[in-house]
């Protein structure tokens, strides 16, 4: 594929999964781009026209100082400013559970992007279920490590819940990848109960259902 790709610093596993879903030379918007490592990788390895939106101003300034095109913004409020079909891919990694209204965010993303890629922690994971069942208290796990009163994750969902939302907003899950606690990834289809139990995280590639 790209001979340069091997020389880049290693991406977080879920970010690498996302990067692998993106075609070369695409137009990409990364919502909640953090320190910009995915954007930088896409720009250098795939010649992507990469843009980012990040909530923290310090994060934005650091990204721009690295030569990335990033603005300060909020997934809940600022996506409506973009025109429809502005991007080939809109990415939301590990952020949907922290948005105020995930449904609106998903609708905006499928409007402005031809493809939407979402990665999320799976609240249907057996360890989460086990903790709640056994202790009767809100689960605290490796990927969800804040207590209930201070967590930014206000809209947690399971894989099944998320797929349901995608269908509700007229989206189509083109690809679904489950990642287990050892970081191993495998594709799954639809409301796979096994994936919903064993996946700690999941990555989805979503398109809009063609009207008619």
């Amino acid at each position, binding site marked *: 594929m790209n001979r340069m790709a091997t020389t880049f610093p290693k991406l977080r596993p879920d970010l690498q999964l996302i990067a692998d879903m993106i075609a070369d030379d695409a137009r990409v918007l990364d919502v909640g781009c953090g320190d910009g490592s995915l954007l930088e990788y896409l720009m250098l390895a795939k010649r992507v026209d990469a843009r980012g939106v990040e909530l923290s101003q310090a994060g934005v300034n650091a990204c*721009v*100082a690295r030569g990335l095109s990033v603005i300060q913004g909020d997934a809940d409020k600022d996506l409506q400013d973009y*025109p429809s079909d502005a991007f080939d891919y809109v990415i939301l990694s590990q952020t949907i559970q922290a948005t105020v209204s995930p449904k609106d965010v998903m609708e905006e993303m499928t409007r402005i992007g031809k493809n939407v890629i979402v990665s999320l922690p799976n609240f249907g994971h057996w360890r989460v279920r086990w903790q709640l069942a056994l202790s009767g208290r809100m689960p605290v796990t490796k990927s969800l490590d804040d207590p209930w009163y201070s967590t930014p994750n206000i809209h947690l969902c399971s894989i099944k819940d998320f797929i349901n939302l995608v269908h509700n907003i007229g989206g189509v899950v083109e690809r679904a990848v489950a990642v287990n606690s050892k970081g191993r990834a495998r594709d799954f289809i639809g409301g796979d109960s096994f994936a919903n139990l064993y996946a700690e995280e999941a990555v989805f590639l979503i398109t809009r259902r063609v009207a008619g």
Partner: protein
Amino acid sequence: MTDISQTDIRTSTDESAGVQATGHVVTFSEDQPLKLDCGVSIAPVTIAYQTYGRMNADKSNIILICHALTGDQHAASSHPVTGKPGWWNYMVGPGKPIDTDRYYLICANVLGGCMGTTGPADLDPKTGKPYGLTFPVITIGDMVRAQAMLLDHLEIEDLFCVLGGSMGGMQVLQWAAAYPDRVFSAVPIATAAKHSAQNIAFHEVGRQAIMADPTWHGGDYYSHEETPRKGLAVARMAAHITYLSEAALHRKFGRNLQDRESITYGFDADFQIESYLRHQGFTFVDRFDANSYLYITRAMDYFDLAADYGGVLANAFKGSSTRFCVVSFTSDWLFPTSENRTIVLALNSVAANVSFVEIETDKGHDAFLLDEPEFHSVLSGFLDGAAIHRGLPPKS
């Protein structure tokens, strides 16, 4: 082209900054008039500009720096009147964010200015007397058109970057809107796409101060012995307050007294802040023409980019492939973050390539001229990124 006479008036190396700075003056003759927004044309037009650094072979490393209201072409060379270092010395020079080892910089005195470019203090060829108030009212669009005329003359097709703060930022926006194909990247800093009512109000105070000075003589002071120094100084004092922030004024001056133990029960400059403002006012008048101040403030007041595009700012940038970086400062109340964000919003709504950075500082509007390390690292990073996309060699 044959009718243009170009004269290099000065070649000098500014030792303090270590920059090769060259002064140029070019005059466009009567048969190349500059058409102005007010409907009249002006000729001849002289443009005075400085260049810094070296142009590369394919002319792909050229940056145009647009100066602010009271700035001039001496961004990184010592000022011929005051002898002070360039107004953007923190930013421009070898190894600095706007690196003169990598980029070729052009900075021209704006139309209506008083540092060599045609302005109200110059002779009207029709009368043989200084224009004064017969100088046509100019706009930001006219300033940019004059700069484009200069680039045509220099056979420079496009710019790697157009960059500027405050009124310079207005010119950057105008450049990106009027000549999208000539602007690879654009950095509007601490600016707005329109002048607000509050900003027009402050300018009006300044203009009235000048006009109220009896030595202004209806703008015709050139034939008298005195110039309206007091009026211009008051205008500068009032404007200078708007460039600072309450927090910075408090930090620097507080209620501290000037060279005295106690208040004097008079109208002397008891407070340090009074003394400071008087100094700012009186040093300004040595280097600035009062009528230029009237004309340039008016150009800023008239600036409303959206109005030229059917009232929708986004239309000014439709289809633009320019890479933008908008910068604002938290304590700037003259061109607040909200005004800069309006520009970002318009750019987003046409899916333009835009970065937006707000810098935390208590230094107010003037922060863009000062030592602000985070601002400098952001700008340097943005230019590096743009340079990669432009195919310029990486920083050595």
